[in-house]
């Protein structure tokens, strides 16, 4: 079986709030199933080949680091990343990475900073930081929903356009903008979320959905059952225990 090719974009700069846990989750779940993978780190000054990867992770960073890579991302890698999105490469983008995939970021002074434009969302700077536990119900066509738990920490308000679907509905917390009850975005195989925590370890269903889509794109005959079930006891407990700490009933 061919190795699943995973790419971590700017691992040395976008490495905030434990987002690398998402990669640990993907890689371990492949390892436990005996499925081979290859993890590549791509950072400043390096080319991104849209044909070279099946699954790409883009995390968030601090303002200083994000400003450093803005030009590299837009000019050096921008068109290749958009090309990969159109070829249905699976993406997971968290927080700052999510914002950068969008069309633009509007600063507090009203200045428009162009972003990648890979997905139809716009982010506006906000004064008050939205910090806290985030619980949402993912809305994927292919999976029954569940209560996903994470932690958000952002001041940008993201507004999804008509070209994307929200990743889920907010149960507790702010989500995209604290107003419209949406959290994250889905476009083709691009999954975006404000949830740190990390997101995938506590939400193994989502991790497996990403893996399934990446394999299915490689080999159309690949079926969901080809990802053998894992016990996921700790995963389940970590998810439900935070719900009970937040006094949220498991049935939502």
């Amino acid at each position, binding site marked *: 079986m061919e190795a699943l090719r995973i790419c971590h974009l700017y*691992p*040395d*700069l976008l*490495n*905030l*709030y*434990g*987002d*690398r*846990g998402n990669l*640990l*989750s993907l890689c*371990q779940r492949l390892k436990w199933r005996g499925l081979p993978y290859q993890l590549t780190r791509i950072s*400043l000054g390096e080319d991104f080949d849209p044909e070279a990867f099946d699954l790409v992770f883009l995390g968030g960073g*601090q*303002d*200083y*680091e994000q*400003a*450093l890579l803005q030009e590299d991302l837009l000019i050096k890698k921008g068109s290749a990343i958009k090309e990969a999105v159109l070829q249905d490469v699976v993406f997971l983008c968290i927080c700052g990475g999510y914002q950068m995939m969008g069309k633009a970021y509007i600063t507090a002074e009203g200045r428009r900073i162009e972003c990648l434009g890979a997905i139809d969302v716009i982010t506006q700077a906000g004064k008050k*930081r939205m*910090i*806290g*536990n985030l619980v949402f119900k993912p809305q994927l066509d292919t999976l029954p929903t569940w209560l996903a738990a994470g*932690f958000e*920490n952002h001041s940008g308000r993201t507004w999804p356009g008509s070209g994307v679907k929200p990743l889920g509905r907010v149960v507790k917390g702010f989500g995209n903008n604290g107003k419209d009850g949406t959290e994250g975005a889905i476009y083709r195989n691009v999954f975006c979320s404000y949830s*740190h*925590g*990390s997101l995938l*370890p*506590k939400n193994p269903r989502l991790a497996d959905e990403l893996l399934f889509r990446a394999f299915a794109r490689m080999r159309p005959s690949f079926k969901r059952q080809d990802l053998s079930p894992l*016990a996921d*006891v*700790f*995963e389940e*407990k*970590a998810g439900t*225990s*935070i719900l009970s*700490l937040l006094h949220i009933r498991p049935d939502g």
Partner: protein
Amino acid sequence: MRTRAAIITAKFLVLLLRKFGRGGTSLPGKAALWIQPDLLQILTLPLRIILVTGTNGKTTTARIISEILDRAGISHISNRSGSNLLNGIAAMLVEKCSLKGSFSADTALLELDEAAFRLACTRMRPHAVVVTNFFRDQLDRYGELYSTLNAVREGLAHTGPDTALILNADDSLCTSLAKDSKGPVFFYGVEASAVSGDPAKTDLDALHCIYCGSRYAYAHRTYGHLGGFCCPGCGYSRPGLQVACTRILREDTGGMSVDVNLRLPGQEEQTIRMDIALPGLYNLYNALAAAGCGFALNLPVQAVTAAVARFQSGFGRMETLNCGDRQIKLILVKNPAGFNQVLAHLAPVKAGLHAAFLLNDNIADGTDVSWIWDVDFESFSDAPGIPARISVCGRRKWDMALRLKYSGFDEGDIHVEPSYSQLIQNALGAMAPGECLTLLPTYTAMLTIRRELSKHFSLPEFWA
């Protein structure tokens, strides 16, 4: 009049709280500041002030400085119990002053977190400021790493030419503070000659130049982003050191022996041998910071070397408690950089290790537990040797259990304990007499486990 009222009220509250067994709270300080908002200025005016701030190592550094002051015969007061916000400082001051607001000591040694440091500098004139380092810590409370650095920078803007600044030269963020100082600056650090091999392959906090954004080149690194940095873009680089560790002669779990080169203003260059009673590179930095403070205050070398050689840490910083015929070692963990250092310390003794990870998400711990995914548990899991028993507990025990699982431990080998009392019972029960249990709690977990332990064993009081 207001001051007197504030002191009396707070002192009364302290007595009352003690009576009900609630030591170490900041409520009396809060009340005192409410009655007299200028209390800190008024009380600290006659005192010589030493402030210690930074992300990691504040408590240990402050306590070594305290030991140095003791040995130099300088009477001093300090905030010892890790309550390093302004209310806590006020509580400590009113507790230790006379009813008229005077002290028998002439020096105050205060450990402050970055936000409290900024405020404190507007209310008092420090004689010496020690900055340990800047690592990511509890970003949900303070925003980003650069905001914590700026908080210290803004505080320093209020200091004058009579404030000595003691800085970690190996930290590019910390070193940048020298520009904000109007007084003498003492740099401490670890030279390339003292370290060998590559540090752990973790991602760095400050990878790019704070001034021009170029990627730093490193002549050597000790851990995290600490080391001999140099910016190829603008030339910003690690400065020359006044207090430099040039050689590590011995290091084991009991501590280390090092050579320290001193280039102090107005003195001949000399190299001294320092025995440090604590293990780990991060404690080497703490000892150097404290020594730097001692030298900045012109205290005798003898007082400094004697203090670091005898210093025993406490209150959850590598504190060892005797629990019947077994021992418990408490090591506070609060952010990835500190946690990585603790795991590096435990990896060589992993075989047969009894350890428990206690994770809470209260405000003092940081409400976001995401940071555990930035800790390099993989290196610990990959290290040779099989631990005797690994347990987890605390409000976010399942997150901790999950983190360990994804680092490579088997689910079945991780004991998830529902309560601290059960943890103590089960973990101690699994040990043979003479063995030691290493507890790695976050801040509030440490307070709780200590309280739980004191029900079963007699422990030293911790608001002393």
